[in-house]
């Protein structure tokens, strides 16, 4: 995480002390939003509780989001892009509009899981959202300029 911060991927990076095998990180990232990232080595998961805010469960956006996340595990993707199912299981959830992403680590390779999660979130913001019909959402919920989305 610190490496990413040092390379300017995010700003305002802070790490809270590890408690009960849980490490928590906070950073300012896409659209100048605060992201929390939790690593729980007891549960063997890495989780970002709010990747996207205010997404209705029954919306086309959430449906597309789930499909996009699933597509990142497709065997047709090249090795360097695929989220390898034998190493991690990625899942998303929507709790009162807050969309989260969780990586369940299967082989103790936390570095791999973290790298794939960071890439996945990055891709959601630079590729999935701008490439899709979500201009209104980006303007209303993510603070994108109204004129350009």
């Amino acid at each position: 995480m610190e490496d990413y911060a040092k390379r300017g991927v995010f700003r305002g990076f802070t790490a809270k002390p590890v408690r009960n095998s849980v490490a928590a990180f906070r950073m300012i990232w896409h659209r100048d939003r605060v992201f929390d990232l939790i690593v729980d080595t007891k549960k063997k998961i890495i989780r970002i509780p709010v990747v996207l805010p205010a997404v209705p469960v029954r919306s086309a956006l959430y449906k597309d989001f789930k499909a996009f996340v699933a597509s990142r595990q497709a065997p047709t993707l090249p090795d360097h892009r695929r989220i390898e199912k034998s190493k991690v299981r990625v899942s998303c959830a929507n709790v009162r509009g807050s969309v989260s992403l969780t990586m369940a680590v299967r082989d103790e390779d936390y570095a791999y899981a973290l790298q794939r999660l960071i890439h996945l979130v990055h891709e959601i913001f630079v590729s999935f959202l701008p490439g899709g019909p979500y201009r209104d959402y980006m303007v209303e919920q993510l603070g994108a300029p109204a004129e350009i989305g």
Partner: protein
Amino acid sequence: MSIHSSTGEKTGADKKGQPPRRAFLNGVAAATAAGALLKSQQLFGDTAIPSIRIPKAVTDSLAAPPRRADFSGRGITGAQVFANLCKDEDLGALFCAAGNYYIINEIAQVGIPSYGGRTEGGMCAAADGFTRATAEVAACSGTEGPGFAHMMMNIATAHFAHSPVLVLASNQSIQQEDSWKRIQFMYQQPATEGLKKFGKRITVPNRVYEYGAYAFRNLKSGVPDVVHLDFPIEVATERFQDPAKLWSLYTKEQYRSESRPCPGSKEMQQAIDVIGKAERPVLIAGQGIFARQAWDALMQAAEKHEMVVVGSGPVRGHFPDNHRLSGSLSNGALMSADLVIFVGQYHMPTPGEWTLPPGVKTIRVHPVQEDLGRNWPVDLGIVSDETLFMEALANGLPPKTRNSWVDEVAADRQKKEQANLELYGQFLKYTRDTNTLHPFVLLKELHDFLYKGDIDPKQTVTGWGGNMIGFCAMRWLRANRPAQEIPVVYQFGPMGPDLAMMFGAGVAVQRGIGPQAAYKGAPIVVVTGDAGMGFSLLELDTFAKYKVPVICIVYNNDSWGTFPFALSMDTPRALHMYLFQESIRYDKMAEELGARGEYVRTPEELRASLRRSYDAAAKQGYSTLINCQGMKEFNVDKLYPPGLSFAPEPGVGAVSH
């Protein structure tokens, strides 16, 4: 080289032997156009309004012999000293609206190609367009106060595009400073603060040559940008009979240097090693590649070592979109890069703005050391001229193939093109349902006409702007050779200067300058919106006057493209401010300005109109405005989904960096 008409027929680049204007209009143009242009309308009794025509005085003036002033006889004025310096520097063109008389007159008289248009702002954009199409310096001019003030938007546009535009202005006397004596006095230099590389109000006549040298030293060295000089009347009219009175009067070889920074051998080897080890390198060919005309060396390096290349900047094509190594339509695949090499990227993005992996290893090559590390952390920064770096890279890299990387990029491109076609299908249904053109459908038709028909897909220079129409243009227009596409809105995002800017580009193509040489005389195309018409429609007169053929495609949705904001912000009383009268006939206005006009509502009508218009331009040199009727409701995402916004960057559609 001959240029191609829409039927693939080769036509001569010169206009010799073309039928007279009347014969052309009788034969080719729609009856409405002919009627408007040819009929003398009866007004009162025997009084007739004559047909529109280019006065003989224009032709005579353009044919008048150039004259270079010297120190003999009555001597040489400050304006003439400056004009001579501009001539010696091979200033590519001057674009102006009448004003700043001493300066513009002498620049024209000394033999620099000069063009007078309808507004100072429009002509400033034209100078920008000329530089974008050629990588050469161009000048624009306006008078001291109002004319200069009118240029401001387009000075800023040129600055944010790093265009080497020389802004000239003034005509008033220093003696009236702070006195409110007469009119138009304005101290200009603070107005361009932050929008220029160098600026000076020349107040001492003896230093006019010295500051001219300052101007060109800045315009032709390092990273290009705007230079702003203003000439009070005391400077422009001062006479010199003795060269010794002028300070720093030495030649351009003495007041500036062609020396460029060269990469050190150690850091060059480092770069070669890192690139050689990368499996999926992406080279971002920035504006500096174009400005330094490094596209051949770039191509050589990319092909020798199979690197994926994406061009960027306010002019596109220095790496062709249709090349097998182009990543300009493969944003998804770019996320696989394990190394990015920025070369001549004047406006660096910040991490998170581009479709490149977070924290990707980075080499940046830039001619100015101070910019290395700005916005984007670098693993290796190299100070170098872009051409020298690309030549060293082409020489130093061993031959290599990267089949799986190239295949991945190609597959992603196909996916993107397929997605575009699926969107087109959806928007075509809206067009059929409403009998008006959705802008996405409009651009798909133009795309097929320019790149998939009988015209050489490298021939036609396009420029585009606007809101909704711009979102579509950025997805369909292509650049298959250097300086084939000009995204007018690059970085600064101005609305409206599209047509005026493309006058400068059109001049460059007509004269076959630089990368336009192979397509000398070809027509150009500009895509704009009805909002843009308010800014530069009248420059069609300038196109006609100088016989620069343009096909101006206007997406007419009777409103500012941003009108949905009045709805989304729940401010219904604001809506009227976004709307125009409906069904305004820009095509009719064009006819009254000496161009052809066409009005279309369906893809079939547009297709036929493009063919007629291109033929009229390629064979006869006539401009056409195609008024494409759309609907403002297409801009409301919820009514006609999906809504469009800026395309992912970098690549086709990139306008931010």
